[in-house]
């Protein structure tokens, strides 16, 4: 174990995997000498050279498609997007090509491709550079979706992603990169996909959250404790595959569900979780499941507006109280 930031945890796993398997390589914008704008590839070109730590032109559709082709042809590419918002300029390659290739070609292709990068609020990047994209990729079958909320989770999930023979969309959060935590340095340390992590145990209400909102949910849980509400906080870790069992069992115990994410509330992944729980644990529910998420407007620039557009700790506390009728 060693203490490191979320960004360094990611960098170290990339380096370990590149040492282990020479077919692993990484490409993306500004990842060589700059080391990525958040340092997730800092100095890697010094060890692995610029063939395997490959700067790309600003051509997202092109290099994501090239990642797919290289994966089909025996490499294990990691494609870094500077902002996950830029998946939008490469959507055909991701949704029509990457996600579908294995299935439509009769299950013959293996696609060990990771598309990773950061997203979210916290740096005043405004509408086109602060979005939460994960929900979109859950909708189209064929992509795994991972969302680490701590340095340790980032390391364990990223190694699993790189070794997976399926395409993985790997969502990091810009406001988490500087967070420090204990990380398992074992080069075989992996966290399984489809296994949620109970970040805090509780008995009165289940709060499901991802990325930055795990932290916020834990803060809310602390406040709730001071008013006598015991909250269980669950991080699904991967949204595809989704660990239904852990969430449903939790709700069977607590009888109450709040889902909170930074993605827009409208048609956000919280709706899927609420529906799933309603189907599976309807008679255990003591209150309708609640969803919190960003308002139905593009994320505004001004800080006071950005805060107003996204759920705050107080909103999570309020929602938990509401389902507990307190």
């Amino acid at each position, binding site marked *: 174990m060693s203490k490191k930031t979320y960004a360094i945890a990611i960098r170290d796993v990339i380096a370990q995997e590149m040492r282990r398997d020479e077919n692993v390589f990484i490409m993306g914008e500004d990842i*060589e000498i700059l080391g990525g704008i958040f340092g997730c590839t800092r100095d890697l070109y010094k060890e692995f050279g610029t063939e395997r730590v490959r700067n790309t032109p*600003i051509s997202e559709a092109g290099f994501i498609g090239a990642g797919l082709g290289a994966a089909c042809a025996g490499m294990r590419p990691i494609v870094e997007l500077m902002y996950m918002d830029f998946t*939008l*300029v490469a959507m055909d390659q991701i949704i029509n090509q990457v996600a579908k290739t294995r299935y439509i070609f009769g299950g013959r292709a293996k696609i060990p491709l990771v598309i990773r990068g950061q997203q979210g609020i916290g740096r005043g*990047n*405004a509408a086109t550079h602060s979005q939460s994209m994960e929900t979109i990729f859950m909708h189209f079958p064929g992509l795994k979706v991972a969302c680490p909320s701590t340095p340790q989770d980032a390391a364990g999930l990223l190694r699993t992603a790189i070794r997976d023979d399926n395409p993985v969309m790997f969502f990091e959060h810009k406001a988490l990169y500087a967070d420090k935590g204990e990380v398992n340095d074992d080069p075989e340390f992996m966290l399984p996909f489809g296994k949620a992590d109970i970040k805090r145990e509780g008995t009165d209400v289940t709060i499901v959250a991802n990325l930055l909102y795990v932290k916020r949910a834990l803060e809310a849980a602390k406040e709730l404790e001071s008013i006598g509400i015991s909250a269980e906080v669950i991080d699904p870790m991967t949204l595809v595959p989704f660990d239904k069992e852990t969430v449903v069992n939790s709700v069977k115990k607590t009888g109450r569900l709040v889902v909170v994410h930074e993605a827009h509330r409208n048609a956000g992944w919280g709706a899927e979780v609420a529906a799933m729980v309603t189907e599976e644990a309807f008679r255990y529910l003591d209150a309708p499941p609640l969803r919190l998420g960003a308002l*139905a407007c593009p994320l505004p620039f001004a800080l*006071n507006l950005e805060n107003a557009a996204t759920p705050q700790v107080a909103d999570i506390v309020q929602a938990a109280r509401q389902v507990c009728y307190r």
Partner: protein
Amino acid sequence: MISKERASRIYLTMHRIRGFEEQVVSLFESNKLRGSVHLCIGQEAIAATVCSNLTEKDYITSTHRGHGHCIAKGARLDYAMAELMGKATGYCKGRGGSMHIADFETGNLGANAIVGGGIPIAVGAALASKMQKRKEVAVSFFGDGASNEGIFHEALNLASLWKVPVIFVCENNGYGISVPAWQSTSVEDISVRAVSYNMPGVTVDGNDVEAIDEAFRAALERARAGEGPTLIECKTYRWLGHWTGDPQPYRTREEIESWKEKCPIKRYGEKLLEQGFTAEELEQLSQQAKKEVEEAVDFALNSPLPDEGKILEDVFYEEA
């Protein structure tokens, strides 16, 4: 030839842009302004010269490095500064910020935080002008890095095919963030890409007002005559980091200093003195710009924050 009136306008505009951005740096450093700000100090000649040939009815689309375009196209410095500070009085009510600033009233269809995002939008504005038999043209500003996005190629093909009055102005500053053009771009001169789309392509010194002007006026004439688009590549350099605090490991101090020698404002000032402007006249213009910038900063600092109660307004147009 550049008339005396236009020459002093260009000179004033360059000073406005420089002064505005210098203030942005210091506001950023004193935490009065946040977010992604990309500065065009060193590249002012392009926006100032190109826009001196346009009216408020002509269109532009801009980039993440868009303050210069916005100001040159006629935006008020106070509303622009307020936008960068996320104030209610800003051009976009504080919702856009530096990377998403627009002023539809002066024909600025927007900065664009998505590299290459504005290029086809200019083609569309030019198409509208053509379909409605108007004489307005559209200009798309974009960087060298943007010419590696697929959308650049689609937009140039469309424009050529439809012969719309659009002018593509590539500001080639040699880098896309840390990546030098030689490492990302298959050609040395981006202007040669025009050949693929059957339109003229020219490369000019982007720090030389007169060279830019000559190339742009030829393109403008062609556009207005219904002969279609032109690609103009202006070679230039950004003096500052890609973002405030950029450690710039990808270039040397000497390289930066050598480009500062080619300061477009200083160079044009010297030209104007040769052409009969007096030193006092030039000083007066730079002082005027300075004063406007100071007033803009005051205005922005003293403006209120946007009203959170209106956050859901404008997602859709609604009948009043």
